[in-house]
């Protein structure tokens, strides 16, 4: 199957693994939306009145949280299809290439999150003005983050033989990327000497970059020891995305060893 066929295969997988279940079980939309919305709610209730800059940042955080958790969805879906239903095997034993499968599954995860993303973006526009360019920039950050998270999810899903091993790893990995780093809260709240630790997580770059492109100002600057530039954030996020995508393409176990 030539490249065009692989692209079509990816979109077909997205259609039957993403669109059809969404159409038949619309409750899935709320499942995706509820966790970041809860975070947002608590942050707004607790901090909203004291620091008005928190809310736009936290809404952007909700967008990123939703996208990062596509990686967890990818991990669980791919592991479930491979280990529980033996369905990945029918794609391995077919003309579909691993990258087309990865993209198809990743697109279907994106399909699940699009309604939640639209809602968060609508909330963002309600709480702060965002220019068209800022909006496009945010979509770019979303796409890079989605590719990074889903590549990581796919890679991990192929490395284990038991679903029970995978569930805690997914929660640990993606909570470490979406909850602990300064996604919902501003990075400057981390004690100055530990701020560099946050930048070990690629999601921190995504958050900083998203704030920069949308013009969300989170107030106090980072400590002087931390390099703070949107270009650096872009390099960090793009680098992590390329790294995880390559790892998924070359290290994921398409054929069992």
């Amino acid at each position, binding site marked *: *199957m030539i490249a065009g066929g692989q692209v079509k295969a990816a979109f077909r997988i997205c259609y039957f693994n993403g669109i059809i279940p969404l159409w038949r079980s619309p409750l899935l939309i709320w499942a995706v939306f509820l966790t970041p919305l809860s975070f947002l709610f608590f942050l707004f209730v607790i901090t909203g009145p004291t620091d008005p800059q928190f809310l736009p940042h936290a809404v952007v955080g909700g967008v990123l949280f939703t996208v990062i958790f596509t990686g967890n969805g990818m991990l669980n879906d791919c592991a479930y299809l491979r280990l529980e239903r033996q369905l990945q095997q029918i794609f391995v034993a077919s003309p579909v290439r691993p990258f087309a499968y990865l993209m198809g599954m990743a697109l279907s995860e994106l399909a699940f999150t699009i309604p939640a993303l639209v809602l968060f973006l609508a909330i963002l526009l309600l709480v702060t003005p965002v220019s068209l360019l800022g909006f496009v920039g945010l979509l770019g950050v979303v796409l890079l983050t989605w590719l990074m998270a889903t590549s990581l999810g796919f890679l991990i899903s192929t490395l284990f033989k038991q679903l029970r091993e995978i569930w805690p790893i997914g929660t640990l990995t993606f909570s470490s990327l979406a909850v602990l780093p300064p996604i919902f809260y501003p990075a400057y709240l981390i004690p100055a000497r530990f701020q560099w630790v946050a930048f070990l997580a690629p999601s921190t770059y995504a958050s900083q970059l998203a704030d920069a492109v949308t013009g969300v100002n989170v107030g106090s600057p980072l400590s002087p020891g931390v390099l703070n530039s949107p270009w650096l954030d872009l390099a960090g996020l793009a680098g992590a995305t390329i790294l995880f995508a390559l790892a998924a393409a070359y290290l994921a176990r398409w054929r069992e060893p």
Partner: protein
Amino acid sequence: MEALVAQKVTKRYKGRHRETLALDAVDLSIAKGRLFAFLGRNGAGKTTFIKIASTLLAPTSGRVELFGRDVVADPAAVRPLIAVVPQEGKPFYHMTPREHIVEYLRVRGASGETAKSRADGMLEAMGLNEYKDEVSYRLSGGLQQRTMVAMILATQAPFLFLDEPTLGMDPFARRQVWKVIRRAAQAGSTVLLTTHYLDEAEQLSEELAVIESGRVLYRGTAEALKSTLGREVRLRFSRGFTAPELQPYGRVFEERGAVTLLTMRKDVRELTELALERGSEITVGPVTLEEAFLELVGRGIEEDA
């Protein structure tokens, strides 16, 4: 021409505490267009072989070629030529049987029109028409399995791997599936199937192999395997006989309170008359593939006798 050639295929699974030899230098060839059955006990190595030959699993050593292409070195050249029903595979819970077939064919590159027409034909042939628009989580286990098999057979791939394709199906459904599998082979596909239903292997396969502890013990036709028993008839006595007194006539084993004897045709008259004298109910039939299989694998009969 050979569709599949396996040479010295070995697979070792490394566990934390021990290593398991799943395949031990297996040599096997299957001619193009053949319907070939792989028999063996649980854990004998059937699924491991299918996984290796269908590019799902890497062997520890050895070589498998499908239509002259190396499945280890060049899986991308092999994959368009194959389709596999995985053991205990289950369909997508949210899709209907028709969607399964159409979407899988389209993912493999078929046009929308081809996919739909093949799907409709396959649903009809597999007796799934009535359920074609039901989402699969509402279907019984047997219907879900039929959906999996239909999806794979509809590919019309040159080589079809079917790992226990009729698992969980009722006898009617099994026969319906057999018909479609036979049709696939008649249309030119080579079929390698595993099954624990020995009647299925006997009905379907043109040739079979018996595998035990990772080694091929037998390869040939079902009839030839049965003839290796050296017995022609199976007699089952409900009562009035003990195993030791029947041993001079052939192989004897006891099951569920009855005594079964595998013997030669010439002894049937004498034993039937004896059974009538003793008021024992007697059932007479040909030896089955199951008996030949048990004998070959070297368990069962000796243990029970």
